[in-house]
């Protein structure tokens, strides 16, 4: 015999609203346990204190240090935060929550879009916190609202591209900790081995070369220009180029790994 049930909504608008419901679900823990929200806020504070006062305190003028370090910290915390996308996906897969979603008549894409939307929202909180803490230690935006929006947009896009990479790792990894290990192994040299915190001058040749190619160097440099003036437009284009290349690489990989998981 054939059963029929009240029609379940389909199509792109249903898929989007299901994605939003799942994004809501991913953000609830921030409200349920204030500890998690504090964790989200503490990282930018900690990084700015470490880099401005601890590492930056020894050399040069405080205002110069702040102007250099705050955009660097903004980039670092944003890109490191993308590890969360894959970790959360791997967690959902490991403990069966993902399979629960798969037995529901919802759009196949909804769990993935929900995850990425939630992570972008959390990232926005991190970025705004970094700017506020930066302001408190003396960082001033000298360009204007468009510069700020441009800077946030640029770092969000790069983070989005890396989130797809993170999602891919989370979907293929056997365990949460192996996913975290792989992502950290890629992101630490990428963020710290850049000119985000220290200019390349006076470094050994191979390191200067690496810092020059490293997209994070260009992203940090573009952010300094967008927030503090003296923008080199080439940095924006190079960053966009890398973002596009990472998207072109990771989106198909993640979508394929995802399709294999959800069919």
């Amino acid at each position, binding site marked *: *015999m054939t059963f029929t049930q009240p029609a379940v*909504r389909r199509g792109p608008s*249903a898929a989007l609203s299901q994605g939003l*419901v799942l994004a809501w679900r991913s953000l*609830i823990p921030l409200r349920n346990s204030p500890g998690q929200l504090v964790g989200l806020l503490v990282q930018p504070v900690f990084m700015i204190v470490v880099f401005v006062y601890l590492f930056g305190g020894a050399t040069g003028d405080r205002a110069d240090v702040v102007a250099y370090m705050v955009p660097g910290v903004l980039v670092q915390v944003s890109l490191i935060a993308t590890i969360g996308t894959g970790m959360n996906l791997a967690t959902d897969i490991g403990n069966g*929550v993902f*399979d*629960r979603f*798969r037995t529901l008549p*919802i759009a196949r894409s909804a769990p993935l879009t929900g995850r990425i939307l939630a992570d972008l929202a959390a990232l926005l909180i991190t970025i705004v916190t970094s700017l506020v803490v930066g302001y408190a230690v003396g960082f001033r935006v000298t360009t204007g609202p468009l510069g700020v929006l441009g800077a946030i947009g640029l770092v969000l896009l790069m983070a989005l591209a890396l989130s797809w990479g993170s999602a891919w790792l989370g979907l293929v990894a056997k365990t949460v900790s192996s996913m975290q290990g792989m992502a950290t192994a890629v992101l630490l040299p990428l963020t710290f081995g850049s000119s985000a915190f220290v200019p390349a001058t006076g470094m050994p040749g191979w390191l200067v070369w690496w810092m020059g190619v490293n997209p994070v160097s260009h992203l940090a440099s573009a952010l300094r220009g967008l927030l503090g003036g003296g923008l080199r437009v080439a940095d924006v284009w190079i960053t966009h180029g890398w973002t596009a290349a990472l998207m072109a690489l990771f989106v198909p990989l993640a979508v394929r790994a995802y399709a294999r998981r959800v069919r």
Partner: protein
Amino acid sequence: MTYAIEAEGLVKRYGDKTALDGVGLRAETGSVLGVLGPNGAGKTTTVRVLATLAVPDAGHARVGGHDVTREPTRVRELIGLTGQYASVDEKLTGAQNLRLIGRLLGLSRADARARASELLARFGLEEAAARAAGGYSGGMRRRLDLAASLVGRPRVLFLDEPTTGLDPRARGELWDVVGELTADGVTVLLTTQYLEEADRLADDLLVIDQGRVAAAGTPAELKAMAGGHRLDVRPLRPDDVEKAEALLGVSACDGALTVPVHDLSEPPALLRALDDAGIVLAEHALRLPSLDDVFHTLTGDRR
């Protein structure tokens, strides 16, 4: 045709391991089908295929008349799954978990809230409603899991070892829920390792072993397959167990021996033989076969 679940020739391989090797089954609408089998027999894989979580390599299955491979979304509109796999979000409260599913199924905010309250009340979780599910006890978690699978009022419910690890009271409560659901016409497929549970709940049984159906039928039919009476004996002295094994031609399990009896004149003769051999018995009993005996007969006692 009134089968809510039908499957034929299901084959599922993981690498070079064959989890399902031609499983077929049928469950009538509103009935309870119990799937029995030792660990690794293929029970969970069967449920995963029927609940659209795994694609079979061969064979086909229909749930509520819809093919699980070709129309998975149609099937998902009809089913609920509770088990070792589908689970709740530990970081969300009980109420949030249920509201989340209601919202995903297209209920309005208010309807999702009402449905969540209704289910929380039904499963005695009202007091825990505002606590994170990660802090629930095993029994509460299982009840929340079951409530989550009922949000969409499924017509077909899969319960994968729903009472494993539950205390007898919690198990009894779950049995009551299954009874209520089938009274409403819901079809339930339940895997279990507890023969008592299968005997109590299931209208029909399927014994799976090594990815194949070892037997199918009603509990009464399966018991009939195991033949007539059973004589259970337990030697008083552990040293005598081996001697008793040799004498009766069966192997002992936990110091007790079970002999199939074909003729009621056999037991006195067997007991006399044991007595003549100087084997003192701590207990002996004559009884009808249980599902345990069926299970052991069919699966070769590899538990």
